[in-house]
């Protein structure tokens, strides 16, 4: 499945005292895939733009927390 959230597998020390995270992920922003911004892209209304941090839906990326429902066992 294609996603803008990329993954990598960090080195895991054999002496890691904690349960290691085998896979880590990071969000890639939309401007990486847009190239040169085309003219006349659709726009948000001003009040939405201020809330979302961009005027163009093509450049909007919500940040979702990948660790929200994962139990890391550190509690």
């Amino acid at each position: 499945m294609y996603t803008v959230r990329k993954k990598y597998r960090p080195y895991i020390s054999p002496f890691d005292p904690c349960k290691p995270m085998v896979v880590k992920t990071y969000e890639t922003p939309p401007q990486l895939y847009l190239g040169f911004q085309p003219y006349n892209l659709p726009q948000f209304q001003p009040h939405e733009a201020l809330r979302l941090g961009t005027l163009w839906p093509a450049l909007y990326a919500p940040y979702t927390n990948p660790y929200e429902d994962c139990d890391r066992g550190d509690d």
Partner: protein
Amino acid sequence: MSERKWTDEQKKQYYEMLGEIQQVDFVLVELNLYLNTHPHDHKAINQYNEFAQKSMALKNKFQSMFGPLTNFGNSFSTYPWSWDDAPWPWQV
């Protein structure tokens, strides 16, 4: 320096108008950055000018009701000097 005495109605209007100014100014920031790399986008320049005008109109109206938004000669002051009246930006 003095505390402004406002009615609830005025307070509501203060935040509504300030919010609208922020929205319009954010559109201007975005268009400004966009136009730096797209200097020939005629439609966007028209939109920029339109919003600049809107921003100035909103700020003039706001300042006539609630006092100066900027100092050093960019806004007018009432008598007595109203630049240092609360609320200050970080109190809003």
